C-alpha cells in the first residue's frame, strides 16, 4: 500500500464507511439496517484501516480496548433487558419513552449493545491477527 492515491482514497472510503455505519445503525429500527449491519460495516472499515495502516492506527482510532468494547456490548445488551424487571415485566420487555418528536426505548439500547459486541469482537480478532 505505497500509493498515495490509494492511501487517500482508503482514508476517504473508511471515513465514508464509518459515517454510513452510523447511519445504518440509526435507521435500523425503521429501515433495513441495524446493529449487526452497522457493526459489520464498521468492522470492514477498520479492517481496511488495519490492513493499510497497521493495527496501531486502529487502536488509536477507537481508543478503548476492543475486548472491552465487546464485553460492554454484551453487558449493555443484557442490561437493556433489566429495566423491565423494575416495571414488573419479564426480562427484555421493551420499555419506551414516547415524545412527540421521537420514541426511544430499551430495544434501541439492546441494538447498540449488539453493535458494540459485534464490532468489538471483530476488532479484537482483527487486531490480534494483525499484531501477531
Amino acid at each position: 500500500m505505497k500509493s498515495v492515491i490509494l492511501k487517500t482514497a482508503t482514508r476517504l472510503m473508511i471515513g465514508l464507511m464509518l459515517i454510513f455505519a452510523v447511519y445504518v445503525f440509526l435507521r435500523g429500527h425503521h429501515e433495513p439496517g441495524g446493529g449487526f449491519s452497522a457493526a459489520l460495516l464498521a468492522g470492514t472499515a477498520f479492517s481496511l484501516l488495519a490492513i493499510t495502516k497497521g493495527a496501531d492506527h486502529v487502536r488509536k482510532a477507537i481508543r478503548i480496548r476492543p475486548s472491552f468494547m465487546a464485553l460492554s456490548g454484551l453487558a449493555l445488551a443484557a442490561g437493556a433487558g433489566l429495566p423491565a424487571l423494575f416495571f414488573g415485566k419479564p426480562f427484555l420487555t421493551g420499555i419506551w419513552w414516547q415524545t412527540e418528536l421521537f420514541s426511544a426505548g430499551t430495544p434501541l439500547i439492546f441494538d447498540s449493545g449488539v453493535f458494540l459486541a459485534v464490532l468489538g469482537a471483530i476488532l479484537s480478532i482483527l487486531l490480534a491477527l494483525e499484531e501477531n
Partner: protein
Amino acid sequence: MTHLLISPILVPMAFAVITWCFRHHDRHSGSAAIAGALIHLACAGWLLSAVMADGVVVLWVGSWPSPAGICLAADLLSAVLVTVTSVLHVAVMIYARADTTREQIRAGFHPFMQMLTAAICGAFLTGDLFNLYVWFEVMLMASFGIMVMDHPAARLPNAVKYVTLNIVATLFLLTGIGLVYGLTGTLNLADLHDKIALIENDGLLAGTSLLLMTAFGIKSALFPLFFWLPAAYHTLPPGVAAFFGGLLTKVGVYALIRLFTLVFVTQPYITHTILMIAAGLTMLSGVLTAASRMDIRRILSFHIISQVGYMALGLAVFTPLALAAAFIYMVHNIMAKAALFLVGGLIRRAAGSFHLTRIGSLYKTHGLLSAGFFIPAFALAGFPPLSGFWAKLLIIYACLETRHFGAAALAAFVGLLTLFSMVKIWMEAFWKPSPQTQDVSEIRTLSPWMMGPVLGLCLMLVVMGLFIEPVFHLALTAGEQLMDPAGYVAAVKGGK
C-alpha cells in the same frame, strides 16, 4: 415471581462479564466464580421449589404472547437438570480454585465456564426450538474456548475434531429447524406439539424428525455419532472434563427427550424404535471401547457414551416409568461422572499420572481418595444402595414391564462390563503396588479445595441412593409430565 426464571441464565452471564474483568487477578476471579456459582445454585433452588409447588413455570421473554415470542418454560425435568447443573457448577468452581493455573485464568477459564453454564441452563429452560439452537451454539463456542484454553503438546488436532464434528452437528440442527419451521410455521415447542399432530405427510415428518435426531444424536454422543467425544475429552483439565463429561452430552439427551416426548410423538414406531437400536449399540460400544483403555480419562470418556445409551433407552421405551428411569439416570450420572473425572485429576496429583500402568498404591497412601473413587465408581456400575443402582434397576424394570427382554438383558450385561472397567481402575491405581521407584514416604497431600467437591458429590450419590423415595416420586412425576405433555402445552399456551 416467574420473572426470576431468567436468572439461571442471566446470573452466570453477569458473572462471565465480572470474571472477565477480573481475569488478571486470579484470586478475585476464582472467588467471584464461586460466588456466581453459589448465587446460581440459589436461583436454581428457587426454580426447583417453584416448579415443585406450581407445576410448569413459564416466562415469556419480552412479554410477547404465545406463541410469537420466545418463552422459557421449566417443568420438573428442566428444573432438576438446572439444579444439578448449578450443583456441579459449584463443585467444579471450588475444585478449580486449587487446580487452575494462572495462565488458564488469564485465558478466560472463568468467563468461559460461566457462559457455558448460562448456555446449558438456557438450553434446559428454553421453550423455543430456534432458541435451543442458539444456546447450543453458545455452549459450543464456550466449550471451544475452554478446549483451546491451554494445550499441552498436541491437543489441537483433537480440538479440531471436536470443533469440526460439533459444527457439522449444529448445521444439521439448523437444517432440521428450518424444515420444522417450513412444515409448521412455528418454533415454539408447545405450539409444535399441536401443529405436528396436524401434519398428514408421514414420510416428511419422519424424515424431518430423524434429521433432528441425527443432529442431537451427535450432540448426545449416540452410536455411531459419538466420535468427537473420546477424541477430545481426555485432553481436558480435570475440572473441565468433569463439567463437560457430566453435562454436555446430557444437554443433547435432554433435547432428544424434549423433542421426542413433546414434539415428535406421532410416529413412535419409527422414531423410538430407531432410538432403541441406537441406544443398545451405544451402551455396548461405549463399554467395549472403554474396556481396552488404560488412561483413566479415556476409560471415563468412553463410559459417558455407554451411559448415554441407558438414557436413550429410557426415552426409547417411552413409558412414564422409563422416562423416570432416564431422568434418575441423568441426575445420577451427571454427578457420578463429574466426581470420577475430578478423582481422575486427584489421582494424577497424588500419583503423578493418568496412566494406569504408571501408578498404584493409592489405597495405601490415600485412603480418603480411595473412598472418593470407590463410591462413584460403584455407583456408576450400579451397586446398591448408591444412586446408580436405582437408575439401573428402574431402566431394567421399565424394559421388563414393556417386555423388552433383550434390552433389559443388554442393560444388565453392560452394567457388568462397566463394573469391569471401574474395577480395573481400582485394581491398577489403588491396589497395585506403585511401579514408581521414588521414595514412598513422600506422600503427596491433596488440597481440601479439591477433595471437598469430590467428597461432596460422593455424599450426594449416597444420600440420593438412600433417600431415593422422594427422588423417585419426583422422577415419576417428571416422567408423567413428559408422557402427557398437555400440562406443559397448556401452561405455555395459556399464560401471557
